[in-house]
């Protein structure tokens, strides 16, 4: 079993920015169809600000409220799809035999958001960039806990946006933009545990593991949203499946 402490966290999605708003929404979910509103990036110099795509702005919207200006901190950035909208626009240019935008090309790599983040903050701490189909939150946390062995605090960010057409019809992925930012600490904050608890075929039925609250709203039954139920104390544990194994993240009482 692995344990870590959570010093602070913030999350954002269209219309949801405070912990209270998240908790209310998770208890009484309503469909989110609106795009992400304007995200304030005042802490980032204007010339760098323009390089953040909607996906990058979404991630920054969760990160900036929990970080002090000028503090250096290692970070884990995890996104399943990254900036697919941008990659697609570059592929369209290629298909039309048009020259590619150098800016677009430079920002289409998976670690572009974390790169801009480190340039904007002049922080040269370690950065790991993750893309994972299964158990994105769990894999980000496992990586962050690894980094926490040699750093007092680690920033862990999980973020994604819905895929654009023509990809969206082939996936059951996220249906609205979201980002979760957390600061893990060796010494400060509530304790959480991560434990592998058998394989998927084992029947695990503890009383308090989060379940989809509203079966009509399939939006809510994604790993990041089940994890947010844990962060907002709606549940005390959440399970993720990874490579045929079942893992549990739980709050330690």
């Amino acid at each position, binding site marked *: 079993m692995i344990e870590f402490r959570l010093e602070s966290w913030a999350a954002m999605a269209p219309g949801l920015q405070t912990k209270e708003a998240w908790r209310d929404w998770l208890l009484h979910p309503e469909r989110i169809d609106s795009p992400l509103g304007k995200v304030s990036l005042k802490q980032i110099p*204007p*010339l760098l600000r*323009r390089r953040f795509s909607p996906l990058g702005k979404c991630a920054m919207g969760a990160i900036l409220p929990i970080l002090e200006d000028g503090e250096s901190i290692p970070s884990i950035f995890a996104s399943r799809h990254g900036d697919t909208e941008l990659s697609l626009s570059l592929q369209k240019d290629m298909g039309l035999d048009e*020259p590619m*935008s*150098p*800016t677009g090309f*430079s920002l289409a790599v998976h670690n572009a958001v974390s790169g801009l983040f480190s340039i904007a903050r002049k922080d040269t701490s370690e950065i790991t960039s993750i893309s994972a189909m299964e158990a994105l939150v769990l894999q980000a946390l496992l990586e962050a806990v690894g980094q926490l062995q040699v750093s007092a605090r680690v920033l862990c960010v999980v973020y994604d946006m819905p895929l654009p057409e023509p990809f969206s019809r082939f996936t059951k992925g996220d249906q609205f933009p979201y980002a979760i930012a957390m600061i893990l600490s060796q010494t400060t904050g509530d304790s959480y545990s991560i434990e592998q608890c058998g394989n998927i075929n084992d029947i695990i039925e503890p009383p308090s593991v989060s379940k989809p609250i509203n079966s009509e709203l399939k939006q809510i039954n994604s790993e990041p949203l089940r994890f947010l139920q844990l962060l907002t104390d709606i549940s005390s544990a959440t399970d993720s499946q990874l490579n045929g194994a079942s893992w549990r993240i739980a709050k330690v009482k």
Partner: protein
Amino acid sequence: MSNLHLELKQMIIETLDLEDIDTSEIINDEPLFVEGLGLDSIDALEIGLALQKKYGITLKSDSEETRQYFSSINALVELVESHRSK
């Protein structure tokens, strides 16, 4: 200020997503890169591409000449004018 000065300023603002900057804030004889407007090397590539698309000008990315052309709006205007008169 000539129409070409204004045209190039608008091209720079549009291609580089400088939403908050007005054409009047780009000074004709001030540096575009690092100091002055504060653009970076990726912006230089992007301006190079825009010049190619809009005016059919192809520049060598590593030549001293190109460096000169990119030093200010005045220098870019000269570049476009000399290309037109060819």
